[in-house]
């Protein structure tokens, strides 16, 4: 078990990545009760937006200089797609049975994947993403990569900013009101359409920030990366209590830790040799999800941020 601190760090980083994506699921669900299955693709498009920005830079540009511009570009791409999806794919179906927008979401997810596959140059295979070079940062018991610092800073920063926004600003409170009861909120003079667009935009922006973390961590982006990441983030959102923004982050971290622990230790338990290791980590992650849903169906922190605020 001498590698426990390192494995905890691995799990925490993976979890922070899941958590950032999960916020988009949770906010949209909290307000319109829609599971936006295209969210994984919004994440993927953020990654390609950042890559495009990097390719536009002159050769030899330092990644530190390029990173802010890449973040900006990723956020712009993701938000445009996210808001566009809301406007053209989901809004026309508002008021329709809930199955209709769900199916639209799945269709949209495939369409977006295929669009990048077909139209982004060379995107039929994984595209290399720039990485920070240099030795790993040593924290004694564990080490992390330079690129992962970005995630370590971005995830808490995003959470604090979002927490402040939701609880302290006028728009944020309007968001809580809409989430609690859209019809009454409308009667109180809140422009609920604008609030819904806002939820999509914030979720997409966070997904874009996560996409850059993905690129820096794995050194590549590809058109399929949204599918698995989206599925994991959705799991994280449900685990934490879908609709609850802090729950999404907690759910992500729990999921990431569970995967790291399953990979590292389950095979060491006598009699479990065949059920451990990297190929089984997803199985254990979903076993955990089922257990949480059996014992605490509302998720770890409970549903709907509005009820708690």
């Amino acid at each position, binding site marked *: 078990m001498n590698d426990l601190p390192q494995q905890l760090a691995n799990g925490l980083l993976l979890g922070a990545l899941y958590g950032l994506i999960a916020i988009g699921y949770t906010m949209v669900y909290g307000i319109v009760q829609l599971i936006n299955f295209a969210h994984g693709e919004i994440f993927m498009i953020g990654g390609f937006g950042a890559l495009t920005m990097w390719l536009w830079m002159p050769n030899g540009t330092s990644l530190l200089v390029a990173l802010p511009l890449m973040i900006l570009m990723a956020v712009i791409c993701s938000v445009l797609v996210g808001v566009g999806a809301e406007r*053209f794919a989901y809004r026309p179906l508002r008021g329709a049975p809930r199955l209709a927008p769900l199916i639209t979401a799945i269709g949209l997810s495939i*369409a977006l994947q295929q669009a990048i*596959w077909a139209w982004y140059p060379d995107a039929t295979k994984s595209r290399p993403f720039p990485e920070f070079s240099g030795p790993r940062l040593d924290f004694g018991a564990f080490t992390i990569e330079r690129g992962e610092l970005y995630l370590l800073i971005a995830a808490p920063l995003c959470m604090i900013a979002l927490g402040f926004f939701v609880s302290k600003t006028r728009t944020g409170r309007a968001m809580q009101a809409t989430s609690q009861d859209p019809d009454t909120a409308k009667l109180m003079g809140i422009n609920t359409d604008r609030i819904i667009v806002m939820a999509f935009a914030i979720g997409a922006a966070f997904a874009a920030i996560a996409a850059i973390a993905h690129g820096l961590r794995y050194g590549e982006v590809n058109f399929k990366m949204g599918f698995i990441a989206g599925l994991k983030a959705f799991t994280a959102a449900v685990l934490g209590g879908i609709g609850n923004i802090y729950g999404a982050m907690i759910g992500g971290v729990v999921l990431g830790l569970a995967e790291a622990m399953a990979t590292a230790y389950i095979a060491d338990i006598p009699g479990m040799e065949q059920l451990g290791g990297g190929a*089984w980590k997803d199985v254990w992650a979903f076993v955990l999800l089922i257990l949480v849903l059996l014992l605490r169906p509302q998720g770890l922190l409970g549903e709907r941020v509005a009820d708690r605020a």
Partner: protein
Amino acid sequence: MRHRSLLILTTAVTAGALTLSACGSRDDDSEGGGGGDGTTVVIGLDAPLTGDLSALGIGIQNSAELAVKTANKNEEVKGVTFELEPLDDVAQAQQGQQNATKLVGNEDVMGVVGPLNSDVGQSMQKVFADADLVQVSPANTNPALTQGEEWQDGEKTRPFDTYFRVSTTDAIQGPYAAQYLYNEEKLQKVFVIDDKKTYGAGLAGTFADEFEKLGGKVVGTDHVNPDDKDFAAIATKVKNSGADFVYYGGEYPAGAPLAAQVKKAGAKIPTVGGDALFSAEYVALAKENAEGDMASSVGAPLTELDTAKEFIKNYEAAGYEDAYEAYGGYSYDSTWAIIQAVKTVVEENDGELPGDTDEARKAITEAMNDVSFEGVTGKVGFDEFGDTTNKQLSLYQVKDGEHVPLTSGEFEG
């Protein structure tokens, strides 16, 4: 307002659908009919032309096309014009099987080159066998494809008479690497990882068996999902296991990030694998972390073979955008083997193919057993299992961002 957004949505969906259907029809530069009264023989090709493994697949397609063009130009078989029909299997067994059915259905198809992946090959074998249609794979290396599932216990039986391949098998590819690493590099401890696929698990298994037989130690094993990118937890395990190197049975889309993450975790040890890591894409994805990693591949390095010089020259002259990659030479030889089999049948049948499709296919399959010629990759010929008689293997190491030949030789038990 509502109508307009519906219109836009419909447009978007239609555009998406068009994209999907566009990838179905990839016959951009078909060869054209050729001579008026001659017969046209279609050679089918199945490889991953899109997706993560497309670098290898496109190399296969281009090289096969080059062989077809050369045969037509030289009138290799009098009165016969060859044409290539490439199909994309996206590296998926199910798609491969569908493509096989499609090729069997086309009466002009007299032989098929491909596929790249062993599990795809496995799914296609029976379809071709039922139609007596010959298949020559440039790249399948799983021993069970030619020697049956019981090959490891010494009970070799050939499952399908229509299946041939010009690449050597993992039964000798894994052990070849094991011998070099243990005897020459003096490495004692290995961490073995595979992706549980037909190719990866088979390769890792034969490697580990030989390595332990030589006296080496397997200090850890693990399995990964081929679509995964996050190997941080496994990399930490590798680092703490004290292994001298990692052996990975699998392909480069997961192999490259795995090798990179092992090095990033602080274990400065090479990752070694089979021919599916022998690709420029591997270096592109693992970047500077690929340095020192090794990959075995079937045959001798093409750059060192006299027989390959003309192929490389012609490939460059043809102006293909993508490289011929690991299997280009083999793909050329596979295609040429089919052309030679057709030639034999035509010569024995008064200068033309038997009119009946089934009869023609059967005759070509039989002729394949005796095909023998000097190919790009050395002597091409098949033994009683449909395996190549050429047992040459090589190891490559990444130096300055490129795979350079390390050693080459024949494997001896």
